[in-house]
């Protein structure tokens, strides 16, 4: 039985139509280019990047931060389906969890790439190394991210195995884990925010509002990504996803974006009205500082994109038009990617603690390596989603024998 299943899954992954093969081929090429640049980085050290002492975290950590949000967003599907029993989302909740797995995997890759001496990772292992818990927030992040990865892997594999065997999977065994995945998702993004906001040396980050803003924006970008993916899936596979499910997700996202913009507004008011010396990084980001304005166009386009997305999503008749919905999703993904990436990490270091302005932007190597990580992440997601859909639609296994109320 198990051998058969593995064989069938292997066949599902290795076969597919032309589009599937081209997509995977494209991602493989990107991944290989990225990996070739990783060798350069290992050989020369992180000097191959544009990061320096003044801006000691850059593009990798920006991507990491954004992806933690993407991973956390799976709960936007888990809550309505499992907790409020909103059935239409049942078809897609597993896809959301697979996205969480792919996103956390990318997070871990970005962290490894950012470590100057990644080969010493064993120093982090408790007992044989030293795990500075609870003192270092980074160790909390290691715990919650790995826990969240294992949790989602367990949920997905358990659900798929049960479905494959033709049995319902909402069981007494798994429900506590599902409920636990909600605070776990919140925790990964909260702890990641704490990495930054716990640093009095960096006034731009040292604000309690950072953690709630992280959560609010994550619940926009993640579902935005998923809404587009769901439409692709229902066009290209036999999995049926009702309009109702997508509309529900869009409605949730609209209110998350409202909260996100509200929190942003509070922060803008606090900084601008009190106008202390701490406003310098804020000015650098939004208006440019002493002639250095390279982030200005990025943050303004991001906040405009987010605002337009909010306007589109908040009116039910407009968000139910799929063309407009997709525009809103594209805007939100871009908006949050810039806002939580370069818009958050770079100004934390600019100006530096001694007042120096080092205009950091990632170089070609950093961009290619990051693209490579994204490609690997998307491959994980594509393969996972393909297996999931094959099992759910009964292409392999016995899903069709499950009683219909599950």
């Amino acid at each position, binding site marked *: 039985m198990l051998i058969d299943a593995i064989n069938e899954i292997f066949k599902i992954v290795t076969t597919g139509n032309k589009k599937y093969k081209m997509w995977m081929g494209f991602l493989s090429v990107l991944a290989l280019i990225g990996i070739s640049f990783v060798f350069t980085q290992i050989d*020369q*050290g*992180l*000097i191959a990047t544009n*990061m*320096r*002492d*003044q801006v*000691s*975290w850059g593009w990798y950590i920006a991507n990491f931060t954004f992806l933690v949000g993407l991973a956390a967003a799976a709960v936007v599907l888990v809550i309505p389906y499992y907790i409020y029993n909103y059935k239409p989302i049942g078809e897609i909740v597993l896809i959301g969890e697979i996205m969480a797995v792919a996103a956390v995997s990318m997070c871990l890759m970005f962290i490894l790439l*950012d*470590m*100057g*001496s*990644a*080969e*010493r*990772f064993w*120093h*982090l292992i408790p*007992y*044989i*190394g*030293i*795990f*500075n818990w609870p*003192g*270092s*927030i*980074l*160790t909390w992040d*290691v715990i919650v991210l790995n826990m969240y990865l294992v949790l989602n892997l367990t949920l997905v594999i358990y659900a798929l195995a049960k479905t494959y065997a033709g049995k319902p999977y909402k069981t007494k065994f798994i429900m506590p884990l599902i409920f636990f995945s909600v605070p776990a998702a919140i925790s990964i993004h909260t702890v990641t925010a704490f*990495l*930054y906001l*716990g*640093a*009095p*040396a*960096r006034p731009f980050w040292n604000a309690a509002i950072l953690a709630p803003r992280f959560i609010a924006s994550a619940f926009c970008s993640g579902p935005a990504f998923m809404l587009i993916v769901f439409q692709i899936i229902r066009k290209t596979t036999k999995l049926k996803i009702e309009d109702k499910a997508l509309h529900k997700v869009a409605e949730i996202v609209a209110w998350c974006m409202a909260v996100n913009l509200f929190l942003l507004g509070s922060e803008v008011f606090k900084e601008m009205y009190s106008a202390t*010396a701490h406003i*310098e990084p804020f000015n650098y980001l939004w208006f440019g500082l002493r002639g250095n304005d390279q982030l200005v166009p990025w943050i303004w386009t991001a906040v405009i994109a987010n605002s337009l997305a909010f306007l589109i999503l908040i009116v039910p008749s407009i968000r139910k038009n799929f063309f407009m919905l997709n525009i809103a999703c594209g805007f939100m993904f871009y908006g949050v990617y810039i806002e939580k990436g370069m818009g958050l990490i770079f100004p*934390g*270091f600019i*100006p*530096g*603690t*001694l*007042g*120096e302005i080092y205009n950091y932007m990632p170089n070609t190597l950093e961009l290619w390596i990051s693209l490579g990580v994204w490609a690997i992440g998307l491959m994980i997601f594509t393969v996972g989603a393909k297996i999931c859909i094959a099992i759910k639609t009964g292409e392999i296994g016995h899903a069709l024998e499950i009683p219909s109320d599950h």
Partner: protein
Amino acid sequence: MSDNKKKDNSQLTRRKFLAGLTAGAAALTLPAVNADAYMMEEYFRQHYKRLDKEDLNEILTKLEEELTFKYGKKVTATATPPMDDVVFGYALDLSRCIGCRKCVYACVKENNLSRDPQIQWIKVLEFQKDNKKWQGLEHSNKYYNPKKVPEKGKNYVPVQCQQCEKPPCVKVCPVQATWQEKDGIVVVDYNWCIGCRFCMAACPYGARNFNWGKPSIPKEEFNPNIHYLGNRPQYKGTVGKCTFCIQRSRKGRYTACVEACPVGARKFGNLMDPKSEIRYILENMKVFRLKEEIDTKPKFFYFFSMGTGVKS
């Protein structure tokens, strides 16, 4: 007592376990040359605080051999522990500093810092003098380069590790590769640092430098008197910082920057000794510390022995 014993046992097991790992790994690569075995030992080497005397002596001997061979000078490697009743403190007289950067270069040489890529643990900031107020750090310039110093109308503020009593950098390290010693010096175990740079994000004084590339030190300028936690050559992908010249100060000597200063702006001594110069300054001068509002309690003080420093 029983707790201590338990701890000792676990230490022993851990060491044995790692020794086994090392031996096993070495056996795998047989026939291995000595260099390979040394690299394996280095890779599996435990945290500084977990090394016993025997381990440490062996490591220091090997380090001496390696560096003597590499730099063609007789190298002496030590790990002098902190002295009792000593906490080091530093004071800098801003009214004297002329911005000559002699301290910077002396520090680079003394501490075997990389020349390419260039690493400097002391940063001297130049400020435009303003009759009305003392200017904030955001108006500083680290890259001033006139023909002669001091320039008219300029102030200079050298900054290095402030050896905080409450060091934010130590708290955030995920592997405790950096810690505060009994004499107040914050040190880094270069063999334990994983290069995550969280400490650099946490430091309010820009006092930590990362080895972005492979450090390079010219043979003829190599300082052969090294301390394991101080001026030994660092590695690519790890963080380093000022240690108040731990290799000198723990032997009762002044730091290299104090000795190099041509105007006597730099004062260094034992805060626990009521008769020390540093104590005299703290008691008789109006001293201040950088960024007092975030309360890291630096043991690095600034003062003006003459004037207020803001007149032109």
